[in-house]
């Protein structure tokens, strides 16, 4: 090839593809979703900041459903099985996924975890994602319901700073509501930002530690479960 003008370079040919990125994750997520639907299992992708109280909220939900629902939990963390130990202590079955350098769970990891959990017809499956407001937003796991947990100490503007996470949520939960009188957090301003990003999300307030609002969250999830099963033929 000539160094001056590039003449004599091998011809370049274009191959048209038009394929979505993460298509393999999306197809495996659909596989997970179909597998769960056949068994009437509602899967919930629980996302949020580290320290928002996702695991504490799960413990409170497990306590609230103790006599009426079988709950299975896939726990995603970069390291340790501390959260799955907490879930087992609270009375539910748990499977830990340590993501190592990974900053999110993906549909492949959930597929493997589904085979480890002895899932039964009608179970509720929670997937507690890696605490992170960025990466988990991009990866469909095969869930039916996406719940984002945040808290007043994080400030009012998280929805504006992390739009994809809040945009994809069905429920946005403001946990640690007992802190509202003690921290400079304007609830109306925060609600406005959530609405700006996601006009349709259901907004709930909870306090995992004293149980405030947890009943409403359980009822909201049960409502989704019933609507989902009504649409799935037996």
């Amino acid at each position, binding site marked *: 090839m000539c160094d001056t003008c590039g003449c004599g*370079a*091998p*011809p*370049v*040919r*274009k*191959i*048209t*593809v*038009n*394929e*979505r*990125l*993460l*298509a*393999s*994750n999306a197809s495996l997520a659909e596989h997970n979703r179909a597998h769960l639907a056949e068994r009437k299992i509602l899967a919930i992708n629980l996302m949020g900041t580290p320290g928002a109280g996702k695991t504490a909220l799960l413990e409170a939900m497990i306590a609230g459903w103790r006599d009426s629902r079988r709950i299975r939990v896939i726990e995603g963390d970069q390291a340790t099985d501390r959260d799955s130990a907490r879930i087992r202590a609270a009375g539910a079955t748990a499977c830990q996924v340590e993501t190592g350098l*990974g*900053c*999110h769970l*993906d549909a492949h990891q959930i597929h493997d975890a589904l085979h480890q959990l002895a899932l039964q017809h009608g179970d509720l499956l929670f997937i507690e994602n890696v605490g992170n407001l*960025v*990466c988990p*937003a*991009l*990866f469909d796991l095969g869930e039916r319901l996406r719940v984002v947990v945040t808290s007043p100490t994080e400030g009012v503007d998280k929805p*504006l700073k992390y*739009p*994809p996470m809040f*945009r994809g949520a069905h429920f946005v939960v403001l946990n640690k509501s007992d802190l509202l009188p003690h921290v400079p957090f304007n609830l109306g301003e925060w609600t406005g*930002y959530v*609405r*700006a*990003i996601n*006009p*349709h999300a259901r907004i709930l307030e909870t306090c995992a530690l004293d149980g405030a609002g947890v009943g409403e969250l359980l009822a909201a999830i049960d409502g989704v479960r019933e609507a989902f099963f009504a649409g799935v033929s037996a």
Partner: protein
Amino acid sequence: MHELSLARDLLAAIERNLDRPGLRVVRVNLSVGSASGVASDSLRFAFRALAEGTCANGAELAIATVPARCRCANCGTVFDFGGMIGHCPVCAQLGGELVSGNEMLLQAIEVTDV
């Protein structure tokens, strides 16, 4: 950080779409919606690292960012914007319902014979 996962996925999609052996990839055309949250520089960096020793070693990753489209929750105007969130040009309301802008599409691969 998730750009590493995207780059891995992209490389697999490229290798899957080559129509015969003995090709070298010189350029990859990708279009991403501005609301997708993909950091182009991070994606290029991860792709360059992963492509070493493959058919796409040294390939240029050309990323076209497509404006996102939103429906204002206040007045219903449909408007385009760059970035991840925009203001309605009619009533100045922030945000709204996203119509498009999350796409990540591998459009084409430009190849030569080795």
